[in-house]
């Protein structure tokens, strides 16, 4: 599912356009209108495929300023081109540049419409983000300020999310969540273990996150270690609640078999396959879906065998009892860029973040965990404002995930 929610545009290059972006970064000129003082006429040309520069915008003082701003996107024959510029345009044509748009006396704040810009920008950002140029950084900040981000979303709008369950047959429960280009897999394994001496009446849950080098070359060897531990602790803080177990998203006492002697040890393993920002939300959603897909085998205990030693437990591998995931919270990360904050930031937008707050919200609207990462200080009132926004967005995400889980279970039944 390509998740291409934007209108298909005849001109648009697909995102997977010219396969090999050249080694040096394909920087594209910033089309942010605030740079254009008085744009009378704008001709936009698309580069020939192999050219490093993806597109070229030529500004002309219009021969005679036409009253109504005309804006055409089909194949353009510049009708009223000032004489001096005909030579330039025709020579561009010979070099393989194809005119893509013409706009005469555009409004002062020229913001080329999204679907079209996707044609310009879509293929222009190239695969590897080899450091953003100053123009691109301003382009991103400007977009967020106008509630119109580079890939067409509003500030509080998620990328297309796709969920699969049961991707790892050998695990008790597993899920794969794709959030735009971010792709994570979570697997849940239950093994028999001994409860913690301080909390004999509860099972144990351990969360380990691993950043695979396939996501980014810097995760090679021990490179991904620091980010992995940070993600693991943030998730533990959001899902396991206070030390006494109150407010835990996962009901630990349901993991108990024999108090003080035998319980289930739940190992939650996350793997980041491809990272394009917003890893924490994707992982939390994947954990929630994996838990709903998890089946803990039924257990029969015969205590009579050895009263003091380990009671022998036989695990039946037919009937499984489903996990109750209603209490599991979802994590919403609000990233502050400039004066506004956005949801589900891509890695480019995350590079522009001044601070980020990850808030985990459960079904009753209570906050089960909160982590403010990122440097710049925030006014306390802004944080409270963010919490209310996160609760509102959290509900939408929660309902979206529930429908995905239901759909996945339905498809699992009929297989």
């Amino acid at each position, binding site marked *: 599912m390509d998740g291409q929610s934007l209108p298909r545009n005849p001109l648009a290059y697909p995102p997977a356009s010219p396969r090999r972006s050249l080694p040096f970064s394909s920087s594209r000129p910033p089309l942010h209108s605030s740079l254009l003082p008085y744009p009378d006429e704008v001709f936009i040309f698309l580069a020939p495929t192999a050219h490093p520069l993806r597109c070229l915008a030529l500004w002309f003082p219009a021969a005679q300023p036409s009253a109504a701003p005309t804006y055409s996107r089909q194949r353009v024959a510049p009708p009223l081109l000032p004489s001096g510029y005909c030579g330039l345009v025709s020579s561009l044509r010979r070099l393989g540049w194809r005119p893509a748009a013409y706009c005469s006396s555009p409004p002062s704040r020229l913001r080329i419409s999204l679907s079209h810009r996707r044609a310009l920008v879509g293929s222009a950002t190239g695969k590897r983000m080899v450091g953003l140029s100053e123009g691109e950084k301003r382009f991103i900040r400007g977009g967020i300020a106008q509630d119109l981000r580079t890939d067409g979303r509003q500030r509080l709008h998620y990328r297309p999310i796709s969920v699969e369950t049961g991707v790892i047959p050998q695990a008790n429960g597993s899920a794969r969540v794709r959030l735009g280009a971010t792709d994570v897999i979570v697997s849940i394994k239950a093994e028999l273990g001994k409860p913690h001496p301080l909390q004999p009446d509860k099972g144990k849950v351990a969360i380990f996150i691993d950043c695979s080098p396939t996501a980014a070359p810097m995760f090679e060897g021990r490179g991904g270690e620091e980010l992995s531990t940070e993600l693991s602790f943030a998730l533990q803080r959001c899902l396991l609640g206070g030390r006494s177990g109150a407010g835990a998203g996962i009901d630990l006492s349901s993991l108990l078999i024999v108090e003080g002697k035998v319980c289930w040890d739940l190992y939650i393993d996350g793997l980041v396959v491809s990272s394009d920002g917003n890893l924490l939300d994707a992982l939390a959603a994947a954990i929630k879906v994996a838990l709903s897909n998890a089946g803990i085998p039924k257990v029969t205990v015969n205590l009579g065998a050895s009263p003091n030693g380990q009671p022998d437990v036989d695990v039946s591998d037919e009937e499984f009892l489903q996990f109750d995931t209603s209490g599991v919270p979802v994590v919403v990360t609000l990233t502050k860029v400039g004066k506004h904050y956005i949801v589900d930031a891509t890695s480019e937008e995350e590079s522009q973040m001044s601070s980020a707050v990850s808030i985990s919200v459960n079904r009753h609207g209570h906050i089960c965990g909160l982590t403010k990462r990122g440097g*710049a200080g925030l006014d306390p009132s802004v944080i409270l404002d963010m919490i209310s926004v996160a609760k509102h967005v959290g509900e939408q995400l929660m309902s979206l995930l529930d429908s995905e889980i239901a759909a996945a279970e339905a498809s699992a039944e009929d297989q």
Partner: protein
Amino acid sequence: MATNPSTYALSQSSDSKQRLQQRRGLFQETEWTRSDGRNFHQCRPAFLRTGAANAASGSAYAEFGATKVIVSVFGPRESKKAMMYSGTGRLNCNVSYTTFSTPVRGQGSDHKEYSSLLHKALEGAIILETFPKTTVDVFALVLESGGGDLPVIITCASLALADAGIMMYDLVASVSVSCFGRNLVIDPTSEEEACQDGTLMITCMPARNEVTQLTLTGEWTTAKINEAMELCLDACSKLAEIMRSCLKEAASGSS
């Protein structure tokens, strides 16, 4: 100004485990006094001193009740070879526990995330542009863990940075609060931390009234978060007063 600590920490020996279960039941009722006699909204007496280690560019020693921490700051000095070029300065934090700091010997290793949390708390307050391409190293050592370790480490580290002459937007004060059912208990000891329902830790720049770090676990409603934040912010400003007087006394003492 610096009162010597009067509280004692309940040792965690094995026979006290039953007392811990019994005490956990006790915490649930509404009115009870805390083990060291403080009321809910009273912090432990804070003892702060700068210039604790003369080998470092700047250092500080902090004692909050039973929690004793010493922080030394080195730098700004040359970054390690492997580092990439960076236009602004770099902060490198490391928190370590002595083996005898925790009641059960050797438990210090399960606070591995404190180093990155300390880094996130301080990076918002330091003006990194004033020492480009170099690194400031902050090494925190917990001599005794009496509960609420991270807030004490952050407060003491910010004092050490000021003592080292590193340019900062503001001092950084940090306070944590634990919640038991309905009531909020400020500046918890390790014994209270062991059976808390949830905790909220705020790190803020008191003069500019900005929060640089906030972590929260357990189940909270927005109203309770608001109340806890008010409590912590005003505790931070009181703590900042003590830090400023300690710095001024050190400055007037030595010059």
